[in-house]
């Protein structure tokens, strides 16, 4: 069986020309940024620090229901030059109590995983819109806390929803008010 990776291996031995990725990313971004802003969830907004650079923006999520209701959560999204072969880099800059987001801002979302053994990780058919809805879902849907980033928060969620809720509110009041 001929696989593409074998062919590539052979080809790469003779051809090591570095190929610039940025123009591809920028072309994709023009379409995707527009699509994203048109389909944004009601509780989300997007801000570009530099209007001429579509690759860096902040997503602000303000949940209107659920545990994190009333908070304002900021995600810094960086679409690197290798996009869309790799997912954007997402960092949560608002401290919060969440099983899938560490207190230092790392986000655990299968979609954002660059290398994944299952079919849940990044795929170049994904778009910014999927990323935004994925992050939005971290505050709404029933979540899978099987593989948490914040183990303590996940344990608490499992054992006492009341305590969890209090801790979430405490964090919201201290860190996530506008």
């Amino acid at each position: 069986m001929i696989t593409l990776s074998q062919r590539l291996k052979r080809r790469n031995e003779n051809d090591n020309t570095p190929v610039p990725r940025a123009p591809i990313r920028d072309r994709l971004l023009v379409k995707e940024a527009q699509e994203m802003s048109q389909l944004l969830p009601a509780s989300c907004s997007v801000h570009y620090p530099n209007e001429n650079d579509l690759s860096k923006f902040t997503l602000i999520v303000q949940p209107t229901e659920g545990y994190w209701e009333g908070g304002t959560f900021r995600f810094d999204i960086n679409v690197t030059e290798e996009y869309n072969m790799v997912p954007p880099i997402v960092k949560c800059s608002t401290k919060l109590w969440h099983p899938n987001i560490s207190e230092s801002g790392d986000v655990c979302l299968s979609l954002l995983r660059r290398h994944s053994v299952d079919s849940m990780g990044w795929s170049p058919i994904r778009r910014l819109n999927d990323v935004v809805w994925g992050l939005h879902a971290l505050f709404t849907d029933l979540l899978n806390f099987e593989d948490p980033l914040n183990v303590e928060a996940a344990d608490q969620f499992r054992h006492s929803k009341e305590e969890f809720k209090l801790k979430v509110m405490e964090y919201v009041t201290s860190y996530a008010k506008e």
Partner: protein
Amino acid sequence: MFTKVAMADENDNERMDGDNQKLEKMFTLKKWNAVAMWSWDVECDTCAICRVQVMDACLRCQAESKKDSYGKQDCVVVWGECNHSFHYCCMSLWVKQNNRCPLCQQEWSIQRMGK
């Protein structure tokens, strides 16, 4: 429309079984037209990776067309065993990190290449 008629028939039969009496059919089929359609046996004609038609040059080749300094091959289409098609250029980049079809996640192997 055809489905609707079939469903009505089914209901009638059920009623007949239950009540053991003949009811007039609500619908009778007087005329029907067979409709056929065809399409190429590939599932998509847009490359899901760069979102450009597979028959056109990929986004990457389009971007580089002006500075064609090194001998660049034509932008060809590649079909996987799963029948999904992409630009060869786009797919080559993707399989470097994950040898699966981005659309169906099956192990990627080439069925054929060409235009």
